[in-house]
């Protein structure tokens, strides 16, 4: 005998996350399409403490359910993660939803992992969208494996939801402003060696540009660190600056994957431990700058970095797949290895290639009188030159390969024709071009196999 009435909704679990500072995130939700009940919210994460805007659980649930509306028509490939982005003025919120398929109780379900922010944070959030989405996408990959095994996905998702809340909170207080005043940077010094050694500055900027504008600056003195952070930010676009973070004066932030530049404070022992996995998961290779000992190290170029990253991701997912127990979520810090791939832990190497572009810029910019707008103008001219060179290079390759239909075989001609014979110059321009056209390094430097610097040099001589 049936009890009558509609089936009872399962209770929505809720986690309150303690986040330092004001977190612009209102809530994160995990919802799924129940074949009987329709869209259901399974879990809600909310930051603990004061918020700009309050959403009741009912409102959160209503919004989360909305993210799955229309997904009954979804016809994506298995394993695909689709992103939906809502700006609902009527509710005054932004919702970012990642839609994916997963197995719940033996059934294939459409699921949605969403984060909800106030609409007023749109301009703040948009530059960080890609970072958040990429990080959430990867945790969803892990979550899908967990679901497949019949385990609770929430614990896996929490591994990234909480850091994203922390990231957004930290960016709210310490992100680099869109316009950096040159007066707050090393480029305002009277002379080149005033703040830091000339060669160090050159190497730092050059390597920073060679690694697509992605750098971490570590040191014991927050002011010194931030001055270098701001200096490097001058070489980024305004949107990229909004994805950069200054270091905190009293304690250090954690390293965050995806930011362009981040200042990190060393601990009392004078060290800062970088998480290997997170650094490897950065979309671009990273330059490591230590302002205490004036060292600059960089990761291998884009195509090697991407290859390493993917190998590591596969290894990590594979390890998760082989896990037997729900209690054994492999922590992020574990270095995943398998029979075919052992990551090279020495990912930061010396900057090998000298350039002329940055060298001459550094030499010349200090000739102009500081305090006026002369140096800013000269900097703008330098950046314009770099961007135009990158676009020219891109167009050159596009013409030569018929938009990638043919392999690129004339790197030497390119270097001669575009005046990029100096290796460092080529690296800088290639890095800028990579940001415009992802995958360019892999395309130009042959198959994206793991190449050492020497191998790459051999390739480039063709």
């Amino acid at each position, binding site marked *: 005998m049936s009890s009558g009435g509609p089936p009872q909704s399962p209770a929505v679990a809720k986690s309150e996350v303690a986040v330092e500072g004001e977190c612009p995130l209102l809530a994160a939700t995990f919802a799924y399409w129940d074949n009987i009940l329709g869209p259901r919210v399974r879990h809600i994460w909310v930051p603990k403490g004061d918020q700009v805007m309050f959403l009741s659980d009912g409102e959160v649930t209503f919004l989360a359910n909305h993210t799955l509306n229309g997904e009954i028509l979804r016809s994506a490939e298995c394993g695909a993660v689709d992103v939906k982005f809502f700006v609902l003025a009527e509710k005054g919120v932004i919702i970012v939803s990642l839609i994916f398929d997963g197995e719940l109780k033996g059934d294939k379900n459409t699921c949605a992992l969403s984060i909800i922010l106030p609409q007023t944070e749109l301009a703040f959030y948009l530059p960080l969208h890609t970072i958040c989405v990429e990080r959430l996408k990867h945790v969803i990959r892990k979550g899908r494996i967990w679901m497949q095994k019949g385990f609770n996905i929430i614990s896996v998702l929490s591994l990234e939801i909480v850091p994203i809340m922390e990231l957004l909170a930290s960016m709210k207080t310490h992100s680099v402003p869109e316009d950096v005043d040159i007066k707050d940077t090393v480029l305002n010094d009277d002379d080149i060696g005033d703040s830091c050694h000339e060669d160090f500055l050159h190497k730092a900027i050059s390597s920073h540009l060679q690694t697509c504008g992605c750098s971490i600056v570590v040191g014991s003195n927050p002011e010194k660190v931030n001055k270098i952070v701001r200096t490097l930010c001058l070489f980024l676009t305004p949107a990229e600056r909004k994805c950069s973070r200054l270091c905190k004066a009293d304690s250090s932030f954690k390293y965050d994957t995806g930011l362009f530049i981040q200042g990190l404070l060393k601990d009392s022992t004078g060290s800062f431990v970088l998480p290997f996995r997170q650094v490897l998961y950065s979309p671009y290779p990273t330059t490591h700058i230590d302002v205490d000992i004036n060292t600059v190290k960089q990761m291998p170029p884009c195509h090697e970095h991407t290859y390493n990253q993917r190998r590591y991701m596969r290894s990590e997912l594979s390890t998760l797949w082989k896990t037997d127990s729900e209690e054994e979520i492999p922590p992020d810090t574990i270095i995943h290895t398998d029979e075919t791939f052992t990551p090279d832990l020495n990912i930061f190497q010396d900057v090998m290639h000298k350039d002329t572009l940055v060298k001459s810029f550094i030499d010349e910019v200090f000739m102009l009188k500081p305090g006026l707008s002369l140096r800013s103008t000269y900097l703008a001219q330098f950046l314009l030159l770099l961007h135009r060179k990158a676009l020219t290079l891109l*167009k050159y390759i596009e013409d030569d390969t018929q938009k990638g239909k043919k392999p690129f075989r004339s790197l030497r001609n390119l270097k001669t024709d575009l005046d990029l014979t100096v290796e460092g110059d080529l690296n800088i321009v290639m890095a800028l071009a990579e940001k415009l056209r992802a995958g360019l390094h892999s395309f130009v430097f042959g198959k994206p196999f793991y190449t050492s610097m020497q191998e790459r040099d051999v390739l480039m001589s063709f």
Partner: protein
Amino acid sequence: MIGSPDLVAFTKEDEYGQTSPDPWALPEEFSVPLYPLADSNPWAKTSYAKFTKDFILISEFSEQVGPQPLLTIPDDPKICGTFDLNYFSLRIMSVDYQASFVGHPPGSGYPRLSFVEDSRVVLGDSKEGAFAYVHHLTLYDLEARGFVRPFCMAYVSADERKIMLQFQELSLRFSQASECLKAGNRRAFAKELQRKLRDLEYTHSVLQREEGLQREAGPQRMYSAHAVEKANELANVEKSIYEHRDLLKQISLYNRRPRRDPHAVTCQKCMSECLSECEALLDKYAKLANPFSYNNKGEKREEGQADGGGGDGEGDEEEDESVKRRPSYTPQLIKAKSAKCFDKRLKTLLELCENTFYSATVELLKETERSFRGDLCYLHTRRLDRALCRKQRITNFLFEEDLGDDDEDEGRTLRPFCAVNHAVDNYSLLNPPPIVLGPDHLELDSLEPPDPLDPASETSHTQESELGLRESHLESSPSDQTLETQESSEETKGSFSSDKSGLGQSERQQNLAGMKSEAPDPDPDSDLTPDPDHNTDMERESSSEETETTAGDDEGDNKEDQTPTSLLEVVSGLEASREDVCEGEAEEVSDLLVQIDTACCMAQEGFLYEASAPEAVPRLSQNSHPQPLSQTLVVNQEPQAQIPLQDDYTVGSPCSESPAAGLELPVGLLGDAVSRTSVEDGWDCTMSASTGSDRAASPLGYGGTVTLRQRKKAGQGALRFVRQYPFAMQALWCLLSGRTLVVLGADEGRVRRLVAALALFVPSPGKCGERIQAWLSCPFTLTDLQRWKLIGLQRVASPVGSSMLYSLSRYSRYISILDADQKTLRCPPYRGQLLANIADHRTYIRRGSTYFLHVQSTLCRLAAKAFLFTFTHHLHLPVSSTEGPEGLEGRRCCFLQEQLGLGEEDSHILLYLSQLITHQYLQPANRSSATAPCFSFNYSTSVLYKI
């Protein structure tokens, strides 16, 4: 015995190299691809989309047939290819994002209109490779369920990143379009209510009459069933009238409600116009409802305020008069239960909005589609490029495209504008986006003057005139107005007020006054239903005005009579208009340069000019002006003079302050010979500009801004030149070091093409290419050499030809001669390395556009070095009081040679560019004049280069 079929199972795996799958191996669907598509081809990411280009899709969630596509922009089926628009419409409209209450709320007597804010959604179909920015909006329709019709406008692209990176800009553009549609819809809705109310009134009066008759016909205190039915019907109609009046009141309150959307863009003028119209209607129908208001005294009290004492006879008389003035609509009898019929025909989008607003929205969306067209990486770079160029205005004049004056800050490029051409100041963006990806108002297409026959441009005129907005005729919307024409339109306003013959001054003032007061028409009908005749006239006028306004600077002052009766009028008109431009720009630059220390420039000025004869030319020009220009010039006007001006042939000094103005050669303005006496040389100088078809080959539009597209085209010619001529480097050096290059040839087309190609390398070519003379068929003078840095000269075998050759040889020490026929170049030798990279005939650069980019970056580098040289203090100021000019000179040479590593000839380039920057900086008033700061030369022997 084991047979072969049994073995197949064992052999198969080995044969095909397949092993049994590892049960512990991670399935691919849970993994990440090791070699994603982007690695093998970075251009192929979006190749699996079924459509070729981005497009805009307007869809509706129809209450009858569900989601359906209505319109695509561009309206070309090829764009969408095999992409299933029906399915995609279903996908994007399958969610009610604006879920709010519509219809009768509980406890409310009347239906409520729901004022919902627009929603913006980015979603995609990863399988189809289609992604979209979707802007959901709701329009009102009296006959629709809940009075609402949900629509959406979607920007569909195969590149998800493109949408997300430009989200704010897309949002702003679509918000503008949405507000435009909604403004039109509110007016249309009010109009519809007006009609409905009139029908109801009429029905009411008919029913009342019938009921009265029946009551009289029947016995006292006895009501027949028919009479009861009539009475009920009457009550229903009355109720309906109240409901519709309430709807009218609601719609008039639209813009008084608090906006919840911080990103909404509203035009205050549209809002206030709509509001005043609605209020006028509301007033009117409150009065009209009075005849039956005695039936419901309670409600009468409620409506009393709006009533305004309409019950008296005077009010009725007024109303009668106004009714008489409305011949356009005949009220109809409304049958009971006629509404809410499911088989009714739903209004089209055009019917839902007024035609004006609909057309304006479509125009706006077309403009949006155009501005977002193309690959993200090029869009992104172009914006970065412009943002960076804005920071270096001091050197932009050397080689950069003119940025125009209206985009000093990026925010202004995104300043919202009214799609129906209301003044821009009326707009308020509730919360302007902090990240500004400025739409490219200098979109290549839009830089060209719009075709007067273009239906698109005509549409906007129609919109203006339908609204009766006289003032807005003078304002072009950014969609069809270039930076140039914005300036000229400003000027045009002045000239209209005095010169316009079609409309009397007083009439114009009345119209303008009417506009400014924004008072609604006493009879809303006349506003809502414009007089078609009047409309046509207005449309015609505005069209012609618009055509002139956007035709370019040169024509701005010739409104009264397009055909110039005298050459002098044209020349003086040209000069006057350009003077204005120069002055405006000068102020702006001086503001920009406040912070830059002038000390080094001041000191450098002496240095730069000491080797030259700065006074010579001005003196010459003063002498050459013993009388005003109009008196000295002799115009031999031929019948061809009646031909309207061609921009390409408008040659002359852009500013009257130009030292060479006195020797202005009004060349080829009228397409044929014009002669005058040269004061200096005393010879008859005949200059002509051929009307040959080849003239179109010239990318330099004199009198119009040289656009990026034209320069890119020139890149192809430049690449060809570099490949064909081994001495190209020498020719480029001449141009970059300020030595005038004369391209000599018999074939006009060839000469023009060469000039067009070489023009890329002329420093400070002027906003309109004033320093380049593409085709000259008479001898030139010394002052011409100062004015023009690149001259295309006709080789003729006539006495004129011999005098030209004479002038060539006479001035040979100042010029370089590129003989296009003989393929030779006579110029001083160049042994530098600075230009080796852009003039290498063995270059593997394949396309002109790529070569143009390469040239652009090289020239950008040169400009930077010149800037450095100009503003490095210690190169121009003595370090001690004892240091003389020799010391400074030595330091400069040392800087050029050792710091920048330049040889002697390369140094000349930098010195010349620096000289131009100094001149530009110190005399910003003349910045747009193409006058050279000085006329310098050296005595190097020229060498003849041959192929």
